[in-house]
């Protein structure tokens, strides 16, 4: 394993913070551990699509896993795919869809790796039925920096299985996993979009929803009679057999870092209004391809450049149903009052399926996710306020999306962190973990 001479700066998808690190590309599952470990702390990074600092480590060595990207075996009878950890969900789709299979759980981007999907225990629009990604991972191999190779599943090394799911890459390197895919007969999704105004209309739709995939877009800019308006979206894999080809490569790349003034209250307000009115009737039914349904932003590569060089902050939380309405209203009010606009905010019910990971984010309740441009003087304060409201209502925030939680907030959200610490590889660390354990201060 070779080392780069100068330490370049690394950024995650949120582009905040950016931290210096060495990078060691891994090409084979046997590349780790190397005969001699680097002198610095280590952290695996896959596609770097988490938003904050879970995939960063200042002055450390990032183990870049994208080169371990082999598909090792596939059983069309059971749908189980054994693949190396650096394979992306996009690559799995390219392989699986023409064979009549689909991801069991997918987030809003397909450009994440399988290792990252396990390490952040990602969820999707079918959480209420399917649980998280890890519910469909039958086993994986975890390699520790001392060379120990552990086969982890619900039946073997259970403690390591639970600690590594949602374990943010800290328990060791995931080298491969068995993922159970689900059958489909068409690329199409039968889609229903229903407009709503106000949180109660949303809650009503969410409670009655029956579809496999549900999510709502919510306007976090408008106030007054348009407060908390949105579109409740449901989808099912079409049962009518149809063509099952590969997706086309995206051809649109966001070409430049947009200047900071481009995203302001007026442009966001106009965007949100246009998005709401794009759908004219109250209820719209359509057959749509899975790409725009699941990955509306993936069609524009590097869309994060829209937020300019300073980057963006994500906020994602879940609040238990009890008190959920009040908590969400308080949060939405704080956001609209701040005038810190957001393009796309999504809100959804998490289901009751208990997460398998010790540090997994999903729990039953109402989940909200949105992004903000970085304006240190206001957005840091707002995030702090949102974290405090979340805490007050017994909720928690999502590590993979966070760059600003304090150690105190994190430890209240995840009181089991002490127990988790036992499983962290002695050579591994992350900027996120340093922050939430109080070893790394927040920027002012």
């Amino acid at each position, binding site marked *: *394993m*070779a*080392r*780069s*001479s*100068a330490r*370049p700066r690394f950024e995650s998808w949120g582009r905040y913070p950016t931290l210096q690190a060495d990078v*060691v*590309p891994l*090409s*084979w*599952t*046997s590349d780790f551990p190397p005969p001699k470990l680097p002198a610095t702390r280590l952290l695996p990074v896959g596609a770097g699509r988490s938003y904050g600092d879970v995939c960063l480590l200042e002055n450390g060595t990032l183990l870049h896993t994208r*080169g371990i990207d*082999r*598909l*090792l*075996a*596939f059983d069309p009878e059971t749908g189980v*795919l054994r693949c*190396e950890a650096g394979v992306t969900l996009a690559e799995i789709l390219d*392989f699986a869809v023409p064979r009549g299979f689909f991801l069991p759980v997918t987030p809003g981007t397909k450009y994440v790796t399988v290792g990252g999907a396990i390490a952040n225990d990602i969820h999707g629009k079918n959480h209420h039925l399917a649980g998280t990604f890890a519910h469909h991972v039958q086993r994986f191999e975890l390699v520790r920096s001392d060379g120990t190779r552990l086969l982890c599943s619900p039946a073997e090394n259970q403690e390591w299985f639970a600690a590594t799911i949602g374990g943010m890459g800290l328990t060791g390197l995931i080298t491969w996993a068995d993922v159970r895919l689900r059958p489909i007969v068409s690329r199409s999704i039968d889609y229903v979009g229903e407009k709503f105004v106000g949180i109660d209309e949303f809650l009503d739709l969410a409670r009655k929803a029956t579809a496999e995939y549900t999510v709502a877009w919510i306007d976090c800019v408008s106030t007054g009679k348009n407060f908390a308006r949105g579109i409740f979206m449901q989808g099912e894999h079409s049962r009518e057999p149809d063509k099952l080809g590969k997706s086309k490569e995206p051809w649109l790349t966001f070409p430049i870092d947009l200047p900071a003034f481009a995203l302001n209250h007026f442009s966001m307000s106009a965007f949100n209004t246009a998005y709401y009115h794009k759908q004219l009737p109250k209820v719209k039914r359509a057959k749509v391809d899975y790409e725009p349904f699941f990955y509306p932003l993936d069609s524009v590569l590097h869309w994060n450049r829209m937020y300019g060089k300073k980057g963006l902050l994500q906020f994602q939380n879940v609040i238990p149903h009890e008190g959920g309405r009040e908590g969400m209203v308080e949060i939405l009010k704080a956001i609209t009052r701040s005038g810190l606009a957001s393009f796309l905010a999504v809100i959804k019910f998490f289901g009751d399926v208990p997460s398998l990971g010790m540090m997994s984010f999903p729990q039953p309740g109402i989940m909200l996710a949105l992004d903000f441009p970085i304006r240190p003087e206001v957005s840091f304060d707002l995030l702090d306020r949102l974290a405090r409201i979340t805490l007050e209502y017994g909720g928690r925030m999502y590590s993979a999306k966070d760059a600003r939680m304090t150690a105190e907030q994190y430890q209240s959200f995840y009181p089991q962190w002490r127990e988790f610490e036992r499983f962290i590889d002695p050579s591994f660390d992350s900027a996120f973990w340093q922050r939430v354990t109080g070893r790394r201060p927040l920027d002012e």
Partner: protein
Amino acid sequence: MSKEAIPSRVLALGATSAIAEATLRLFAERGASFFLVARNADKLNAVAADLRTRGASSVATHVMDLDDTSAHPAMLAAAAENLGTIELALLAHGVLGDQQQAEAGYPVAEAILGTNFMAPVSLITWLANYFEASHQGTLAVISSVAGDRGRKSNYVYGASKGALNIFLDGVRNRIDRAGVHVLTIKPGFVATPMTAHLPQNALFAQPAKVALGIFNAIRKRKDVVYVPAFWALIMLMIRLVPRRIFKKLNL
């Protein structure tokens, strides 16, 4: 083979190289059969499993050090036997070598030339005769843009690839008339384990992108291909610099 036919019986020499592996995947998706040769059994098995999963009809593996030219004929005969007919031979084994060590002493330079030139000469000699006799086949050889002009930073590697280019020109001139396609592949900077220690910049291409260029060049029966294609322009400019200026540059 008709124009634009896609070979389906593939011999890959140095099959665990990142560029070779990415290229082989494109053939596997189309159901090709493979005979894979590389030095490390574990890595070779991982590549074989991947190609099988992606749709290869059959994958045979052969572990050997391709620097051992005396073992070439037996290995190549086994490949021909296993595949029935070799339709495509992809030569991808090579080393970048350490230029400074090669300047300091001949044995290092000799090792680089042995791996990057002498071993391919041995393989190509056998394969050229095989293809010529069977009046078909594609011989695709991974060379490098470094072979286009000697530069102080890597001229031993460059010389091995430049010599290979000339050798391939001659072989092409000889067996084109027998219906054999000889392709010289000149990758620019590719993000692979071979270049992992170099600072990466915008010129570095991913192996999958390079593989697609190689795949299309095989399909279209091109003689020489730069991958990615913009390297043809860069190397044209490099070649056009007058020698009296070139010798003063830090390249």
